[in-house]
């Protein structure tokens, strides 16, 4: 008897770190690890936009600064719109392989959704997990389909036939090819998951911190979703869902409050876990090419473009900085000669390891304003115009230096001008933030021109024309190799 017990113990399954999931607690931990982004850095693709410029390499002691050279080489294929930027002849940083990274997270969501019925726990806990996983899956698919597919309402695009991305909705792995679903199928799935997640989260889950998702965030993402879907009939829903969140979460950070005594500007990020403006934060701050170790003998190869910094009202001096976003949204780079340049984003909180990705209330005002402006463009209904201006002014007022000077609201009557102003405001507010500019350029059918100086000191101009097929990013070569059913985007 003792022998059989000790024998059983001797042969009891043992592993240092492995376990079989048994409870909702285990699945919650698994979700935190494998369904949430959890520290995974994801490329922002700012280097493809007009927010980034290239600076020639300066020779120091007869050679370029090594880290700058490496950074220049890493950023060149994307910056020069090389159609083979994600092929094997170029080094793809792991964070730029957003395709693989996001599908790895989708796997986490699918495994948990499939496994929920096999673990013990209350229905409330299970629904909370289900709601979070559905939201996350929808978030990832929306990112994938906007990066690797054409826009839903793009010129000459039929969503029923245009290529989206393959929809994987179960944890079952199979061999063989996996074809791309149509744009419509992917958008419909995102919509379905979000509409299902919202009530589940509302009833079962209240996050205790901004790193976990909530029902309000779900509505916020729905407003982004309909804005991206972009047909005129989607604008009502953009407004509806933005409003739904703004009813609960409407506070904007007043940047004027950041300015210290003696007009001091010290780093103070807008993405602060304690800030009421922040709906959700996940990891990562900069694009890889902006993480170079700097050397004040020369400008880094890729910095904030002059075009972007020219968008901001610089004010009149230290007593009125004008648009404070210019001061607070960019980390400056001071060269040995003392000249300051905006270098990369400063939206992250100093000394905090979390980054600048997620969702802010400011975007909801911009989403709603753009939707109103679009409606105004179509219908000419002035209530839409005033609603759009109200949202824009609310946002701008919190961003301007109002310590000594009152904010002057903007007032635009021309529908096209209002729509353009919405776009410009969106660029100013969401600059260098999680892919916004790239998708906005794509939505709005705008092009990009880059001036590039290579390591050989030859300067040339590269253009990404409006509505270029390259806006649907080439699928990385390793993905193409592994999936024989994929069709590459035209490039």
């Amino acid at each position, binding site marked *: 008897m003792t022998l059989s017990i000790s*024998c059983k113990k*001797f*042969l*009891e*399954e*043992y*592993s*240092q*770190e*492995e*376990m*079989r999931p048994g409870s909702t607690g285990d699945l*919650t*931990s*698994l979700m*935190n*690890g*494998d369904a949430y982004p*959890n520290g995974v850095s994801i490329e922002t693709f700012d280097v493809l936009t007009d927010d980034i410029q290239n600076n020639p390499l300066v020779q120091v002691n*007869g*050679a370029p*600064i*090594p880290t700058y050279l490496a950074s220049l*080489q890493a950023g060149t294929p994307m910056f020069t719109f090389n159609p*083979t930027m994600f*092929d*094997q*002849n170029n080094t793809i940083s792991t964070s730029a392989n957003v*395709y693989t990274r996001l*599908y*790895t997270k*989708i*796997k*986490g969501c699918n*495994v948990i959704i499939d496994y929920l019925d096999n673990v013990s726990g209350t229905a409330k806990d299970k629904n909370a997990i289900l709601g979070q996983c559905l939201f996350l899956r929808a978030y990832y698919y929306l990112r994938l389909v906007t990066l690797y597919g054409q826009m839903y309402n793009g010129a000459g695009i039929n969503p029923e036939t245009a290529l989206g991305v393959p929809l994987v909705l179960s944890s*079952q*792995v*199979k*061999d063989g*090819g*996996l074809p791309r679903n149509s744009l419509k199928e992917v958008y419909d799935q995102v919509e379905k998951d979000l509409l299902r997640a919202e009530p589940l989260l509302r009833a079962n889950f209240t996050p205790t*911190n901004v*790193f976990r998702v909530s029902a309000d965030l779900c509505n916020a993402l729905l407003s982004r979703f309909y804005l991206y879907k972009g047909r005129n009939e989607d604008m009502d829903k953009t407004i509806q869902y933005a409003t739904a969140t703004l009813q609960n979460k409407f506070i904007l950070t007043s940047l004027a409050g950041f300015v210290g005594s003696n007009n001091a500007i010290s780093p103070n990020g807008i993405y602060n876990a304690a800030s009421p403006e922040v709906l959700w934060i996940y990891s990562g701050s900069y694009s890889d090419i902006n993480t170079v*170790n*700097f050397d*004040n*003998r020369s400008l880094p190869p890729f910095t904030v473009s002059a075009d972007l910094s020219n968008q901001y009202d610089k004010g009149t001096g230290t007593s009125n900085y004008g648009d404070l976003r210019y001061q607070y949204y960019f980390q400056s780079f*001071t060269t040995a000669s003392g000249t300051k340049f905006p270098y990369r984003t400063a939206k992250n909180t*100093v000394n905090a*390891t*979390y980054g600048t990705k997620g969702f802010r209330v400011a975007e909801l005002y911009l989403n709603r304003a753009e939707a109103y402006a679009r409606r105004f463009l179509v219908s000419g209904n002035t209530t839409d115009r005033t609603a759009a201006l109200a949202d824009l002014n609310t946002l701008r007022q919190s961003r301007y230096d109002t310590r000594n000077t009152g904010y002057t609201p903007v007032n635009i009557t021309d529908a096209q001008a209002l729509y353009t102003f919405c776009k410009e405001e969106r660029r100013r507010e969401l600059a260098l933030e999680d892919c916004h500019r790239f998708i906005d350029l794509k939505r709005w059918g705008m092009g990009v021109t880059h001036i590039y100086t290579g*390591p*050989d000191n030859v300067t040339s101009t590269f253009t990404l024309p409006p509505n270029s097929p390259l806006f649907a990013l080439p699928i990385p*070569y*390793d*993905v193409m*190799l*592994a*999936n024989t059913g994929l069709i*590459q985007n035209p490039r």
Partner: protein
Amino acid sequence: MFAIFAFQLGSSKAQTVTLSKSNAKIVDVFKEIRKQTGYDFVYTSSHISETTPVTINVKNASLESALAACFKDQPLSYSIKNKTIIIKSKTVTQEMGPPASRPAGKYRMVTGRVADTENRSLPGVTVFSKELNVKTATDKEGRYKIDVSAQEPATLIFSFVGMESKQVSVSNQSVIDVTLSMAAKEMEEMVVTGYQILKKADVVGSVATIQAKDLNLNGINTLEQALQGKLAGVVVTNTSGMVGTKQNVRVRGTSTLVGSQEPIWVVDGIIQEDPLPFKAQELNTAGNINSDNFDYLRTFVGNSIRWLNPNDIQDITVLKDASATAIYGVRAANGVIVITTKKGQVGPPSINYSTNFSITDKVTYQKLNLMNSKERVAVSREIFERGLTSPFVNNNIGYAGALNEYLYLKTITEDEFNTRVAAMETANTNWFDILFRAPVSTNHNLGISGGNSNTRYYSSFGYNTNNGTAIGNDTKGITGSLAMSSQVFKNLSLSIRLAASKNTTNGFYQVSPYDYATKVNRAIAAYNPDGELSFYRNSSGYMFNIINEINETGNVNNVLTTNGSMDVNYQISNNFRFQTLFSYNSSATNGSTYATEKTEYVSRTLRFAEYGISPSDPAYINSKLPVGGEFNEVTSTNRTFGWRNNLSFNKTFGRKHTVGAMFGIETNSTNYEGYQATAYGYLRDRGKSFATLPLTVTSAKTVNSLLVSIPRITDRRVNTMGLYLTSSYSYASRYVFNFSVRNDRSNRFGQFTNEKFNPVWAGGFRWNIANEKWFESSNWLSGLALRSSFGYQRNIAANISPDLIIKLPTGQAANSTDALTGESLLTIGNLPYGDLRWEQTTSLNLGLDWNLFQNKVNGSIEYYTKRGRDLITTLPVPLEYGVPNMYVNGGSMKNEGYEVSANFVPVRTRNFTWSVSLNTSKNRNLVTKTGAQVVSWRTAASGQLNVEGQPVSAFYAFKYTGINPANGEPTFDLSVAPGADPKSPTSFMQYMGKLDPDFTSGLGMNFRYKMLSFSSSFYLQVGGKRFLAPLYNYASNNSGLPTEYENLSRLILDRWTPSNTGASIPALPNGSLPSVALPNNDQTYKNLYMFYNYSTDRVVSATSFRCNNINVSYTLPESVVKKIKCKNVSLGGGVSNPFVINSHDFNGVDPEVAYGGQPRTRTYTLNLNLSF
């Protein structure tokens, strides 16, 4: 197993015997004699186990003469007391005894010495004077004294166990020296399986044995190397010429695709575990092996038998087929190599000392056919003159650097430029002279053994130093062992073995001297004219000097191993025996690697600035590691205990039916505990202390990521419990049937809950044809046996489960707790693979053993086929599933082959012997079913594309159609073969063959002339093809245009240039070459020069004939030996790797390592062996 067999029989009978038996067991003869005479026999079973079959034919003979005939050639003697015949082992006669009895008549005395073929004295040889019917035994110096009949011719018969008896007719000599030679009786050899000791005549499976004396242990680094070409079916491949690294060992090809393919090593019945836990190779998405800082260490920590002193080995047996390995269960799927260690010999203490010194050749440029600096500068000049470009050029060093300064920067004048170029052209830095040496290695080994009939002992002590040819690579080891076996009680025997060893290996970290010496431009200087190290700016942009890099990095490991085992045998009754074997092994590995702050590696990867920055430098504040280097440490202890109990039964019924069975239970527990960590800020030269890292970097105060360095603890425990049964039945030594079955249970996590009962079973049949009555032993054919076996095995690669397994994230990147929310994190360890089943392997083995020409030629022929079905393969799946691949029972594989091994003794005379041993094996490996896989020209060229009906490592090359005479670019035929699927790269590439050899063969040839012997061993490999190392190294930033850092093959001298349009080698690549579209729209590297590297022009045959070693040894004549008070003295010398003959396309480079690794060079050895 000491049991008295006494037959008591009351009635008295006549004392004459009539007997006629051939090849009978001696026990049967005793029974018959007892029946006829009434005399009882007293003997022990151990006596009987040493006997050989008896052939006796006497009619009405006296008891004495009947017994004499019966004991002829037996290692036994007898005495008669009170109608009881007491059987004894022939004891070594210490003194020259008087002749046993002296019948009346005329006789005279003869003396002499008996020696073996190597002129070693043979003590204990029975000398029988036929006419007088007296016998004696030789003393410890092999001398004897016996009376012979005075009437000529008298006859003396010399016999000894394991030797061929010799009959000498004596005329009037008084001194007769005799040489006895080994009996080549293949059929009576014993085979050690680790669980049992079987008579070779009872073995149904496929085994091969080699005696330690047939292995050349001089000038080799590991035991595996010595086994190359020695055993049919065992393929040993060298991966590197450095010391302390492992070899690949494969028994009968590859049979699994995802699990470990290494055979298991067994020493005296105990399975050995590696000092570090098995780590499956991690592949990244591009299919390359991911290696971390710790893998540098792993390479230099040897395998599970590194602790064993090769001088302690008695013999090595490899178990190849399912029937031989079934008793080991699932673990033995890749074969079992069983090592038996030496046991003490009965007799007074015998001391043996052996030592050897060896010196190894340096690697030289002659072997590699690389350019000298003048030729290399000419290439750079051509690049400039023809205006060739590359996407990125680093104009810091070499000709391009000087040109840059002269033409563009204008910092030097034309004269200075010319002086610098002239200096480069004559630099000719010999990197091999600087980084390599001709090292001397030594080995000392002392062995003491002895004992009496109850207790025997063997102990040894060894010390060895092995220095690699690369300066900085060496190993040192000390081994000690003590083995004792004792007959404690009549029916209880005990043997104990203790061994300990310590090994230290020094290797390299982050640098490879061989790689550097073969690749770097010889125009670069190693030293400045003032004798200081000459640094240059490497492609990373930081200052580099290889000597500095080697001096400032280190990789050292210490492995301490202790083993103990106890083997108890208890003979319960005549038929039952109980054995228990307990073993405990423990090994502690302690390894560390480091790079100091002075290395380019630290500048490049951690500091991002040159060494010597001060806090006032802008780089200082931006650096994560402004002061200090990197230090990695791994400690690992392995504790293994095993306990095996078994009961065996042996009985012969009705004289002809022998039944044997063994049932046992085995428990094993292996425990690994380890810790590994990386620490930054290491200051080797400042008391091995550590500097404090800055908390934040850059003016934006980013948190220093190096502070978050997470150590890793390994805690692995593998418990297994197995039940096994093996049984055999033999009929009249003619037909032998065998069946074995084993089932294991383990504590492995994520087991297949529905498949816990998974026995491995195998059975076999052997027909000893030579023992058939109708078989007439003729002159040319004296032995013949046929074997066949069949086995079935199910197997699963560890760490794969059909269930969802989650785990705590480990490693640097992940953390088990969310840093932001404090919540715990888990990650997926194993996705649920619902319909995953165990792998199935069935195997069939057929063998024929034969002896020809009175045992002058003996050998065996084997054929085997092994079919693996439901093999678990990693199937690449679309990355959209979130995993790069999944496990499926997708593969089927067939291995079949034949093996021939033979020993010949073409000449055997008193003074001259010539013997030859030969083994050949051919393995054919065929993938019969594949799943979906990565289909690209790269997988096709690298042999990873499995094509049904082609062997596993089949590969393809681009069809090279010559050089475009207009621009020197290589041209290719990329047309799709008619009817082929253009999606497959096989449609436009050419099938070249396979990477693995078809046929391997080992040949050993030994000659002896008097005291001089000569031995040699050769290794032949036929078939197998390879791509040569690329001439132009294509990389993403250079398009194949040589950089100033690179040296090039001299073959490039005959490249296309505008003035040499009829060249054999394409022109230097020009960077603006566009990519070439392939018919299948492949998106991986598509440059013409990339294709050229993988074209038909670059394929060579890997067929080679290698001489592994040649040795000469000389045994000093006895007169000399006596003077220096030794028993035996021999001197020898040899050379390892004297020559290789292979395809001339290799240009002298060793094909085994022609693709980057360091070749083995010639080693000369001198050895001395003394015994007292």
